[in-house]
């Protein structure tokens, strides 16, 4: 037992302990990388088994397709972190698209597009007023606006609108090198929201509100204003998704976007967000968006029916949450 008192042995035992804790950290971190790892594994399998997967056309298609869910998920994540939920994003996507297409026939695009996004932010403000102002449960409030906004979209136009000015449509369709422009925009948004949530007082307050609203209120922070902000942000990103989607397909349909809220919630949850609030990350959500996008892309390549895709998605959500639970 003289060994233990020698400097070498002591150093060794310190190293051993460090390794032990590092291994534990690694385990914790590995679990948070589950969606990313799953993405890489699936992508590899796809690359090996399908010639079409790695083709320029398919990849840029994949990226174009995830932009909608990516943008919506950013707003959804912000709301979920504040212990809320926003079921109205799909309807807001349709609203922004219809308004944008309508305005494009009257105004130049640098005016029409921001106005359409502005209308989406107002819709988000309506959610914020109901939740933060009237203290309605977020699920109920946004269920109501989901229905009301969708109805409003049909009131504005029962039929699809095709914009005559295609300048914005061309920007959306363009690429920088091999990467579609909207995908670059989306990645920029992810970086911005990550910065917002982690490094600004408002972002940290939103996290804290989701964790313990009363403690935040008693710390002298305006809770209602921050909850309002979260819904405004959700409206903003749903609006951006809406104008980009309408411009990508070249036509704004009042029926577009049904069920998009579920994909966004799924991406957040797969990325580790807790619907109870206070927990979740932009990085995880990004991985969730990629994974969901990749799965539908793959299943399309293999010509699997859309119904099977839904089954896959459901299984994925359950697996992601189970993996998280281990982490404690």
């Amino acid at each position, binding site marked *: 037992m003289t060994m233990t008192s020698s400097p070498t042995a002591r150093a060794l035992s310190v190293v051993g302990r460090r390794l032990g804790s590092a291994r534990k950290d690694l385990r914790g971190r590995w679990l948070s990388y589950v969606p990313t790892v799953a993405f890489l594994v699936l992508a590899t399998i796809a690359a090996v088994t399908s010639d079409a997967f790695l083709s320029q056309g398919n990849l840029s298609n994949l990226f174009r397709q995830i932009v909608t869910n990516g943008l919506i998920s950013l707003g959804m994540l912000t709301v979920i972190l504040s212990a809320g939920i926003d079921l109205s994003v799909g309807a807001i996507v349709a609203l922004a698209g219809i308004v944008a297409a309508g305005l494009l026939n009257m105004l130049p695009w640098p005016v029409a597009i921001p106005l359409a996004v502005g209308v989406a932010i107002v819709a988000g403000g309506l959610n914020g007023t109901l939740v933060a102002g009237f203290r309605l449960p977020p699920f109920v409030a946004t269920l109501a606006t989901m229905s009301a906004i969708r109805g409003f979209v049909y009131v504005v136009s029962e039929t699809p609108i095709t914009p005559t000015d295609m300048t914005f449509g061309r920007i959306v369709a363009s690429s920088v090198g091999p990467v579609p422009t909207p995908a670059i925009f989306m990645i920029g948004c992810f970086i911005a929201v990550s910065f917002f949530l982690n490094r600004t*007082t408002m972002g940290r307050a939103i996290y804290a509100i989701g964790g313990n609203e009363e*403690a935040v209120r008693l710390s002298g922070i305006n809770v209602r204003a921050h909850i309002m902000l979260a819904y405004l942000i959700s409206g903003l990103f749903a609006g951006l998704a809406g104008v980009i989607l309408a411009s990508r397909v070249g036509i704004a349909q009042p029926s577009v976007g049904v069920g998009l809220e579920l994909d966004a919630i799924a991406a957040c949850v797969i990325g580790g967000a807790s619907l109870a609030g206070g927990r979740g990350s932009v990085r995880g959500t990004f991985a969730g968006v990629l994974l969901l996008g990749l799965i539908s892309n793959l299943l399309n390549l293999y010509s699997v029916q859309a119904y099977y895709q839904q089954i896959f998605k459901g299984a994925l959500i359950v697996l992601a949450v189970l993996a998280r639970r281990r982490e404690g």
Partner: protein
Amino acid sequence: MSQADVPAPVAMVPRLDMRGISKRYDATLALRNVDLVVQPGEIHAIAGENGAGKSTLIKILAGAVARDAGAIKIDGVETELPSPHAARQAGIRVVYQEFSLVPHLSVAENILLGQMPSRARGMWIDWKTAAQRASAALDSLGFVVPNVRRPVASLPVSQRQMVEIAKAMLERPRILVLDEPSAVLSGGDLDRLFNAVRALRDAGTTVLYVSHRLDEVFEIASRITVLKDGGLVGTVDASSIDQAGLVRMMVGRELAEIYPPRNASIGEPLLQVRNLSRTRVFKDVNLNLAPGEIVGVFGLVGSGRTDVVRAIFGADASTGEMTLGGRPYRPRSPGDALSRGVAMLSEDRARDGLVLQLSIRDNLSLASYSQMSRLGLISRRLQDALVTKEIAEVNVRAPSIGAAVRRLSGGNQQKVVVGKWLLRGAEVLLLDEPTRGVDVGAKAEIYRIIATLAERGKAILLVSSELPEILGMSDRILVMRGGRIVGQFSRSEATEERLLAAAAGVVEGTAA
């Protein structure tokens, strides 16, 4: 048979015989080879600081946590307790601090959960019988809950605890575990609980009483098992030891060292409160608070002491006049109060004080973002510098400033809450039960911080239901009962007896 190194009375098969119990959570050894032997019909206290392993031991007994090593015998029979259900089958019933009640069901349904009386072969609930049985269960304990058909959520916390206890006792368990019941019960209710517990003991139930309040332990228990840092210090007869001796066993330090010396220089009143009222909660409360002064507010549960503090902090609406530094003070929100330099440390830190899943850094910063940010952008360098300094000042022991607060012990959590307000830099500190659920060692540290703050000229209002704390810390003491201030004592005239008498209304007859 395993070795008997615990002084257990002979010639009886112990009701509960736990041997060599160990439990490890990740890196920490929560329990280390602990023995606990309890006889039938005994009231046995488990004492120890927070983090000593009391709750882990209880959770193992309740089947909520699996042990890593050791054996459990009940009435001499080797018993596995793989689940809470199994523990209940074995006759073990635990009343936790956190309640296991269904908030929107009635008192009667909660007490009779799973055994509601019914008619027509279970088709209809027999509400009349249910109400009678539930009332009878409460009456037998001497507890008064006005209407057993009201939902539990509408009751004050102390009455919810009574419902919980009544529910447990109705099952006539072989072993009843009470986990810190005095956290929410006080005065007469606690006395009634003790009487009911003694009656239960006489009927043959074994009672384990977990508490860190020493006076209670001595009042109710015949034997005491002391834990410290996950290990067994020893089991003693209550009659063979005094409070000082028990404290020495629990912490290895003397009681006198807990309260710091006070040398305050008290200035002119800074905060003046006149006729502060809140309908049906408190009425015509007057008080002055000066820099350098610690004013204690003592009262039993439901006396309105917490509500007064919340009103001064702007967390609840109230009427009346308040001035701060000679200027009118009318806070409409906690934000208003903070901007005038008034901070509150709330009684329930998990509910009102901390965001448990966020880091120490985030929690300490929560009230002070303006000091560490520009245009809403947090400067990590400034934040970490301020937070690190504060952690050192209040002596939080944690692996890193990024560690989640929920991983800290109760004492360290409370120090984070205190640090949050110190970082913010308030002139008036409203401290509501600053040491609730905190072990003796951490208590001493928090008292030292409070005394230092008073020396630096802060005005401190200390609300507490613990008499030794009020007497040990305060320059002046106000006593509340039924929403009014019913007594004022200087440090020299105050004694435990006089404060208790005023708080319970013994002198002036009973109040509402």
